């Protein structure tokens, strides 16, 4: 199996699925000749033409809305938002329309659209090119939200999303695009939407994370391993619908849970995981469910010292692990 970068996995999934099913089209800003600002759609326009690779106007609400209409009339659109920060103008179309089309029509119409968006902070991404948006959408019934963390998952889950008859928000942490490499199965394969994955076995406590925080958590787990703390690390992968069984099973084993997320802590996605553990694993818990989330400021500030102040690093996670282990 070849080792490829996360961004290449995304790109391959596009190429494969567009070749496999002519109903699949891509639309978004700069997805054509430029191949997307991160390169996710490179090469598509040459292979599939301007009819299927659409450089959209700079208008996110209608990128979503046009995709919804296309899906109603037999296409399978992949709508790229250049940055997750810029999905906000499409909030109404996604929440009121895409997520409700099937329910409100009593199953008469569906909405097989994949909404892709690079999210999360990297160096210099500042207030408006770094947002975590998962909690907004994971809250909305009718849309699936996935955050794959490995190239193999990215490729396999993007294929799953494209083949899914319902709308899927596909979030790609931009720090992974070029940094994360991994093996990817040969040929056609799908990684199902739903199941979480235990990325590191441990018995002392469970760290539950997704996106870039998975990597910081895995590193933190290594840091504390030498101190005799054996942390299990769970990769949530699918935020909605959530695979709570895998999480609860882990907590039943370790009796301690730390949830790590890059988004602002308050009413962030991690609150749901914490609430579920608190309610359903009450008898298993030897310590309070802990959360590590970002500071309550509107976004990641640009200037280096501020950015560092904001970021959740392996060091901060290791500290939280130590605190939880010592409880």
């Amino acid at each position, binding site marked *: 199996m070849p080792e490829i970068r996360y961004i290449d996995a995304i790109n391959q999934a596009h190429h494969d699925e567009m070749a496999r099913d002519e109903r699949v089209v891509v639309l978004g800003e700069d997805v054509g000749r430029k191949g997307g600002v991160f390169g996710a759609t490179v090469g598509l326009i040459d292979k599939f033409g301007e009819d299927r690779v659409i450089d959209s106007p700079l208008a996110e609400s*209608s990128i*979503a809305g046009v995709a919804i*209409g296309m899906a109603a009339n*037999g296409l399978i659109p992949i709508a790229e938002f250049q940055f997750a920060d810029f999905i906000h103008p499409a909030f109404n179309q996604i929440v009121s329309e895409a997520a409700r089309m099937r329910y409100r*029509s009593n199953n*008469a119409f569906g909405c097989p659209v994949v909404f892709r968006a690079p999210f999360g902070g990297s160096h210099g991404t500042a207030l408006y090119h770094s947002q975590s948006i998962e909690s907004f959408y994971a809250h909305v019934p009718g849309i699936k939200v996935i955050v794959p963390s490995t190239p193999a998952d990215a490729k396999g889950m993007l294929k799953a999303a494209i083949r899914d*008859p319902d709308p899927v928000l596909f979030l790609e942490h931009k720090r992974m695009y070029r940094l994360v490499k991994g093996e990817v199965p040969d040929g056609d394969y799908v990684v199902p939407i739903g199941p979480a994955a235990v990325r590191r076995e441990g018995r002392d406590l469970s760290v539950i994370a997704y996106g870039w925080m998975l990597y910081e958590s895995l590193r933190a787990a290594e840091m504390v391993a030498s101190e005799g703390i054996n942390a299990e690390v769970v990769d949530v992968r699918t935020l909605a619908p959530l695979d709570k069984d895998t999480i609860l099973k882990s907590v039943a084993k370790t009796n301690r849970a730390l949830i790590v997320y890059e988004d602002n802590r308050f009413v962030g996605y991690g609150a749901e995981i914490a609430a579920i553990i608190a309610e359903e694993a009450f008898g298993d818990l030897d310590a309070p469910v802990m959360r590590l989330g970002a500071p309550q400021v509107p976004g990641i500030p640009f200037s280096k010292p501020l950015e560092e102040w904001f970021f959740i690093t392996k060091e901060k996670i290791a500290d939280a692990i130590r605190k939880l282990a010592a409880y």
Partner: protein
Amino acid sequence: MSAMEAKARVTPARHKTLGLTDKDVLDMYYYIALARALDERMWVLQRAGKAMFVISGPGHEGCQVGAMWPMDKQRDWFVPFYRSIAACLVKGMTASDMLLGLFARANDPSSGGRQMPGHYGHPRVKILSTSSPVGTQYPHGVGIAYAAKIRKTGEITMVAIGEGGTSQGDVHEAMNWAGIYKLPVIFVVENNAYAISVPLHKQVAGGNVAARAAGYGFPGVSADGSDVLECYRVAKEAHDRAKRGEGPTLLEFRVPRLGSHSSDDQQERYRTKEEIQADRRRDPLQTFRQYLESVAVMNEGTHKEITDRIKREIDEATDFADRSPLPEPDSGARYVFHEGD
């Protein structure tokens, strides 16, 4: 032979010059009258406590029937708004369909009773499911038309909204897409000069919705929405244009609003008696009837036949809808996602 009939024989009737037969215009009248009668029935049922809410389109029926007439019932798409009763009837929904929606029954084809009345949708006759947020349907119409172009299906899409709705960003974005890609879509704006209580001059800068089209490089036409044949004429042109691959057209129909916004509104609070009265004189049902009588296509007798038929149909539909089952409580959990084939 009356003097009027004599005159009709001399100059060819307008509808004939437009290529419409006598049967066509009688059918058109039937739909206008059916929509109006349904409308009235819905208000009666609401006042009688049989329905929670009514939103309907008295005054809008003429332009809707005229605009929908060139559309192919099977092939073409329609993306309605809550006033689109007459348009949906022409497209293929029935009086029963409408009343099943009003009574929120399990077999309501629009939503199985899940949505408020007036939220039409019907997969069999290609009417997209609609929601309440004003404006979102415009990009949907464009997406459907875009798919038709890519898939080369020859489908034309018509999407409707009120003049208030044109203030939404989505409407602009949709028209821009359609203009860029010359999509086979007809943008209908039913301008009744009010968005609930907000009058046209506080809603539409410039006062003329059709004038917006020029900015997107395609034609915009403003027509008297009470002149059914004129509405048909401009819609036919738009339809032909779309078919020829020449792209979108924006049709603004200036219509009267013959009632309050909905059963939750009292227009007397913000409109003068005189204005409401003046609107009544623009009733498309009356103007079209006058036309049909003037060209001797309809007389007392045919009019009564149509009216009786409509009454019968609506009575039956009311009965049928009333006897239809409500949804099972637990069915509320279904169809959040696809449930397998």
